[in-house]
């Protein structure tokens, strides 16, 4: 069917691809902590030791948890299993709201308290016109 050279080139390509896929997989596995953009409150709770490095916590803003004092915003990030209290001073993005996704960047004071230096709003995959949202109701 195919010549010997064609088969050899195909084998060569397959071997290269397999080895590179394997190495990429191993690299991504070992760098998992760096590939992940943020950690959930549950993952923070199960940290063995707290280090001083900057990290990101992500989850939902707990309903009725936002309180704004003079120049400070306090709220709770939850993943519906564990929670973490966050304090932040500065402007929050427009989409920052209760019951919506958020990623906070900053430093961990202890396992329950996070001092944020930057707040990012996480958008979910739902796109719909306002009328439809009203019809569905606020779930």
């Amino acid at each position, binding site marked *: 069917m195919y010549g010997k050279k*064609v088969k050899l*080139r*195909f084998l060569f*390509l397959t071997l*290269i*691809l397999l080895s*590179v*896929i394997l190495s*990429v997989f191993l690299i*991504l596995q070992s760098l*998992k902590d760096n*590939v*992940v*953009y*943020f*950690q*959930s409150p549950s993952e923070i709770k199960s940290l063995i030791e707290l280090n001083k490095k900057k990290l990101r916590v*992500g989850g939902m803003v707990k309903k009725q948890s936002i309180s704004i004092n003079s120049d400070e915003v306090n709220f709770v990030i939850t993943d519906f299993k564990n929670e973490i209290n966050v304090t932040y001073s500065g402007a*929050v*993005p*427009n*989409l*920052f709201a209760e019951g*919506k996704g958020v*990623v906070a960047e900053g430093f961990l004071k202890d396992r329950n308290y996070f001092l944020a230096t*930057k*707040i*990012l*709003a*996480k*958008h*979910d*995959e*739902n*796109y*719909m*016109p*306002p*009328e*439809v*949202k009203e019809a569905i109701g606020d779930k």
Partner: protein
Amino acid sequence: MFKYFKPNKIFAITSRAPKYVLFLFIIVLTIGLTEALILSPEDYKQSDAVRIMYVHVPAAWISLGIFSSLALLSVGSFVFKNKNFSLIAKSLAPSGFIFNVIALVTGSIWGKPTWGTWWAWDARITSMLILALFYGMYLLAWRIYQDKEQAIKITSMIAILGAINVPIIKFSVDWWNTLHQPQSINILSNNSIHASMLIPLGIMTAAFALFSLLIFLMKYNTELIKVKNKGLDRL
């Protein structure tokens, strides 16, 4: 089977087709932009910023699609030594690169008002940047290597190895926590995007695909003229 690709026949098509494709592209783009910018509703949460999506998402899809075809064509040209495949791949690459850059730039413009940042080193965005680098390498390799045989070998390798990145981009939002939202369009289950927004998205994708086809035909035509000028009647 590949010897039935007759350059003369292909040339007859590529030299005439662009003007029809251009005509079709302008019509579809006009309909698409009207749908996306005027007729489609605003989003309940991000209001008018959602309109960036109608450029961002099709551009990202097309750039991924083109890179996948580059890889497949490169396997064909590397294994079967068919030069036509590498000419097709070479002509496809520029529009894929342009759409990749458009996806990155529009994503950045969207990210500022919604997320609150221009750039985030999350898995989806970083892997998309790596794709742009692979596109850059691919295009540069064609220019750097004067020797045709060598250029074909090196560009095929770049395209094939870069293709490993494609599934990583696709599944990055499922495998890791990312700032980028997961996909809204599912073939197997329900879409989490409303039909009134899906229609302009579809039309814009068609328009961008036509644009890629247009650029491809023009580039490919030039490549065939180069082949003809060398006095070769086959590739």
